[in-house]
């Protein structure tokens, strides 16, 4: 009797082992049956990713610096941020991390783009129906909290090692903030403004694109910003399953205890993060210029 209370009555070790084995076998079976189909499904994505990475690496560095400067200026309209961004890239180049940085830039850009393309519609869907919100929120919770190594296992089993599984891992981790903030932004739109749109006979579509999305844009942009940050923080883990970039030297530094190498590449990731963050934040702020107060 006492034993029953001290030992949790678990299912037997053998049953458990068999259950795990069954699950593994089933998944392996699934992987054998559909792995190839899935891989070819993601093939266009892989081709795009490779093309973009090659493009970035083949472009002469002065042009990249120019583009970085131009994007920083267009996004922030601030000389400080523009000069800072260009200077950071120059330092990265001087310390011979240019190629890895371009590879990281490629995967982060593609991942962010995919997050926006997939995440914003999901966020809109969530905002339009409470049931959808109740359904999707726990999924997002799981995606944000489950240790990334756990979902790396099935992803690698299905797709092997390479860029696409790496990209998927980044997506899973980075997409929740943009979905959440799109949903939040739309739900926070002033109901009186929506009522006015209704009173003038706006169709649901006119309301969505004319009122809700524009007014949610600052929040959506905060989501894009968060998504970029989270994608960057996945760089090292993604390099474990074969994504090239700044994560690879960091990984090498960990296993060989190369302090300087790890630090330099780590700081390069930080520099990218700060640049992206400042540019996207100041762009987001400029979107809200109309919120200026003060009467004449």
């Amino acid at each position, binding site marked *: 009797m006492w034993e029953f209370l001290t030992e949790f009555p678990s299912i037997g070790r053998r049953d458990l082992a068999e259950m795990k084995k069954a699950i593994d076998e089933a998944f392996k079976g699934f992987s054998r049956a559909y792995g190839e189909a899935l891989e070819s499904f993601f093939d266009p994505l892989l081709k795009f990713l490779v093309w973009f990475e090659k493009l970035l690496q083949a472009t002469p560095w002065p042009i990249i610096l120019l583009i970085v400067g131009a994007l920083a200026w267009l996004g922030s309209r601030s000389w400080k941020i523009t000069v800072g961004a260009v200077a950071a890239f120059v330092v990265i180049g001087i310390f011979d991390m240019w190629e890895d940085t371009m590879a990281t830039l490629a995967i982060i850009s593609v991942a962010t783009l995919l997050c926006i393309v997939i995440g914003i519609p999901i966020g809109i869907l969530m905002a339009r129906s409470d049931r959808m919100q109740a359904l999707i929120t726990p999924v997002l919770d799981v995606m944000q909290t489950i240790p990334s190594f756990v979902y790396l296992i099935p992803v690698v089993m299905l797709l092997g090692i390479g860029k696409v599984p790496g990209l998927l891992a980044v997506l899973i981790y980075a997409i929740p903030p943009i979905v959440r903030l799109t949903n939040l932004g739309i739900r926070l739109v002033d109901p*009186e403004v929506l009522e006015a*749109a209704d*009173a*003038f006979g*706006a169709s649901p579509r006119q309301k969505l694109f004319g009122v809700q999305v524009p007014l949610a844009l600052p929040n959506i942009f905060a989501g894009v910003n968060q998504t970029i940050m989270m994608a960057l923080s996945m760089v090292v883990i993604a390099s474990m399953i074969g994504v090239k970039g700044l994560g690879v030297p960091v990984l090498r530094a960990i296993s060989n205890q190369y302090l300087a190498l790890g630090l330099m590449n780590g700081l390069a990731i930080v520099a990218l993060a700060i640049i992206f963050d400042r540019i996207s934040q100041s762009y987001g702020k400029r979107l809200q210029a*109309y919120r200026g107060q003060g009467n004449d």
Partner: protein
Amino acid sequence: MTEPKIRIANLYKIFGKTPAKVLPHVRDDAMGKDELLETHNHVLGVNDVSLDIRPRQIQVVMGLSGSGKSTLIRHINRLIEPTDGAITVDGEDVLAMNALQLRDLRRHRMSMVFQKFALLPHRTIRENVGYGLEVQGLGADEIVKRTRHWIERVGLAGYEDRYPGHLSGGMQQRVGLARGLATDADILLMDEAFSALDPLIRYDMQSILLELQNELHKTIVFITHDLDEALRLGDNIAILRDGAMVQTGDAQQIVLNPADDYIRDFIKDINRARVIRLGALARPLDAGRPPAEELPRLAAATVLEDALLTMSGAPDQTVLVARKDGTLAGTATLTQAIEALHG
């Protein structure tokens, strides 16, 4: 009597989980607002309201907060669905309209001005005024042309490219008014449109509205809790209390014959001399006796405040009251006027 532009008939609105179930209590057992809330946990918004709104007039709906006036006005364009009753606009059943017909009604035939302005903060003044036109699907050139006219009309020329957040409350509501007028709808719903403004600015806006109305002759439904505003603007005034209609009539009728103590209480503090017009006092001339031609003539629309001096100086302190078309409505004496002022 002209056909009503908008007809509201036996309208009920009950808020709660099962409004249809508790409706009979209100409709058949005459259960009041407080009792319904207590026994059935439903809120009675509108209670058996019937109102004919004539075209080209300002119909004021007045009541204290919680009297259901804002709920009532939202039934006209069906922003709120009634629990029971009928609403027709130009003889058309609004409640029978499907989503598309309803949208068409809101786009072309009625527009709305809101208490808290409800402007689109991310759009400029020009884009706000043009919102209704954009929803209608007009081309950009046409929108610019029409909005320019209305922005000038409400005195906001020069502010076209500002954002609502940069304007004062009074100016924001001018934008709201211009937005409402720009669609050329012949019904304008105004939900406490001037209530959020300072008294002076409110008076200005009332003047602008009256001036525009003189020219445009829209059918305006104007919600307010301010009696002075109601008396100044309303061609006809309906007074609501706890969702039910207490009295309806023009300013004269309400001031001279208040239906109950609630309304008597309401009108107790107003300046009667500015509301009551001579026409309401006129006693018909005795047939056969020719009117004394030496008596001064005053228009029936003259308010007592303006008439008193003339009356006290007139022979017998009596004046002739002339209708708009020039015929005589009768005579009025100073004594009558003083009695009317005393209430």
